[in-house]
């Protein structure tokens, strides 16, 4: 389908889809609760109950500030993966994409609208995490405007990945299972909670393939003064990691948008 298009019409479409998506989210109280409860409970468990034990070796051997990117990564990775994959699956099951394919709203616009909704939700959750981490662990966090940029760029990429997962799984249940199966290893093997020095050398190239690694390293470089990262792409690690993450996120978003079904085979 085509449409006689103008920027105003495009903004109107996206705004309409954002409004509908936001309402649909906030009216699912269980989803709202667990979206914020999940990262909070992680901070409580690992930050307050397990506690870090600096220099003891093993997990959580680094100072509390080291793990801030990990806690943020839980919402930046998991929330888009699970929400987008199940949302796409729900749209498929309800023939909503078949309907949308006959309207002027394009796949990329739809995904952008959903990404905006996720970005708002995840920004709020990330702020909550920062407050909890500082309050419960006493971590020192250097706040930077780039922190917000990292969160938003990460959301864009993982919304794309979630959309792709939802497009290729059979049902909502399958989408959630797939997002967990992919999300958990990515989360723990992307320089978040596990220091790469604890991983076998042969595995390290895989760490470098994960976009979340660049999120974690960049956020750590920005918020954790003790982080000692070298230049990335010839740039300061905060900027260099952001550039790599941006590139990866754009690719993932494009893949996600292309994956959304507009026609059957």
């Amino acid at each position: 389908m085509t449409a006689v298009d103008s920027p105003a019409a495009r903004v109107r479409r996206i705004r309409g889809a954002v409004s509908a998506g936001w309402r649909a989210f906030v009216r699912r109280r269980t989803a709202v609760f667990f979206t914020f409860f999940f990262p909070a409970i992680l901070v409580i468990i690992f930050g307050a109950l397990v506690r870090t034990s600096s220099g003891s070796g093993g997990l959580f051997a680094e100072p509390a500030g080291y793990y801030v990117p990990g806690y943020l990564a839980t919402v930046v990775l998991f929330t888009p993966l699970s929400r987008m994959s199940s949302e796409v699956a729900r749209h498929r099951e309800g023939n909503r994409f078949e309907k949308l394919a006959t309207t002027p709203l394009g796949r990329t616009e739809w995904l952008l609208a959903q990404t905006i909704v996720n970005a708002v939700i995840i920004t709020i959750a990330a702020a909550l995490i920062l407050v909890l981490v500082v309050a419960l662990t006493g971590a020192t966090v250097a706040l930077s405007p780039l922190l917000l940029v990292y969160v938003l760029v990460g959301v864009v990429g993982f919304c794309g990945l979630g959309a792709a997962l939802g497009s290729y799984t059979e049902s909502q249940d399958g989408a959630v299972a797939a997002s967990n199966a992919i999300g958990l290893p990515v989360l723990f093997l992307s320089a978040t909670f596990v220091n790469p020095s604890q991983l076998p050398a042969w595995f390290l190239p895989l760490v470098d393939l994960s976009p979340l690694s660049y999120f974690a390293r960049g956020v750590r470089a920005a918020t954790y003064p003790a982080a000692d990262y070298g230049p990335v792409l010839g740039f300061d690690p905060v900027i260099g990691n952001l550039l790599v993450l941006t590139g990866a996120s754009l690719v993932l978003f494009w893949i996600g948008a292309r994956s959304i079904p507009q026609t059957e085979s």
Partner: protein
Amino acid sequence: MNPVVVAEDVAKRYGETVALDGASLSIDAGEVFALIGPNGAGKTTLVRALTGTVSPDSGSVSVLGTAPADVDASRLGVLPQSFSPPDRLSARELLAYYASLYPESRDPDTVLAEVGLADSAETWYENLSGGQQRRACVGSTLLNDPDVLVLDEPTTGIDPAGRRTIHRLIEDLAADGTTVLLTTHDMAEAERLADRVGLLADGTVLDVGSPAALVDRHAGSDRLVVDLAETETDTESPMTAADLVATARETLPNRIERDRSRLVVHDVDPTDIGSVADDLSTAGIEYTGLRWTEPGLEAVYYALADAETDAVTGGPESVAGEASVTSNPPISDVGGGRP
């Protein structure tokens, strides 16, 4: 007339399953066209091919003079089968959402009133009844004031009052020049709304025509159904079934068939019912009721769909193009009783 929806020799397979096998149809501007056929006949696949959400393996489709992928979406309204929109939006929010997708759109409240949901505007979609939900979905297709409206089973699950609302809506749209393609399993709906009807079976459009023309071509004649008295259907009765039909055939010039406990007398004009009853009585055939039936689209449906199935399966022995007796609902009961 200028055809605005055209399918020519469209074929589509899903693995070993043939969904469409050379389906063709043409719908003129301002026409209401109903596509009928059994489940699995290919109706939804043909609709999807016409709306660009299925790519045919072969053949061609065009809408408003162009390929579906190139149609200006603002000129098309589509209600998919089994469509389930976001369920935690109110009816008004839902229509406002779909309205926002078009550069210019109608007032959602006006459309809500048209589909009879003005009083439920603030109710979440998931809390609407099944019929109200379907009406909200129909409303979502009207927001852009489409030139071509495609409705895949628009009245499924809707109660009679809601169905009447949708029917009137479609009639009003047609009167204003909107081209409407609808699929339905409700023959009365097709007969009431459609200028022309296409019957699809096994992926092929078997015939297209006005409801009256299809009935003339395929449904057979008006007939009188004679409900036989028990003594006539008793296996101990001295008059066997064969005797009964033979006696009736000797008495009446019409074509006569026996269907379980009934005799079916074909080509009976309503004004001749009395004389047929007298002749049956004279022949000693006892009956408990007479019903005159006029075949409709349902008879066409059975005649064509059964013939197509029989052609594929090689059975049964009924003559193609002749409607089953039991498929004809009684149109008028002319009374009866023992003669």
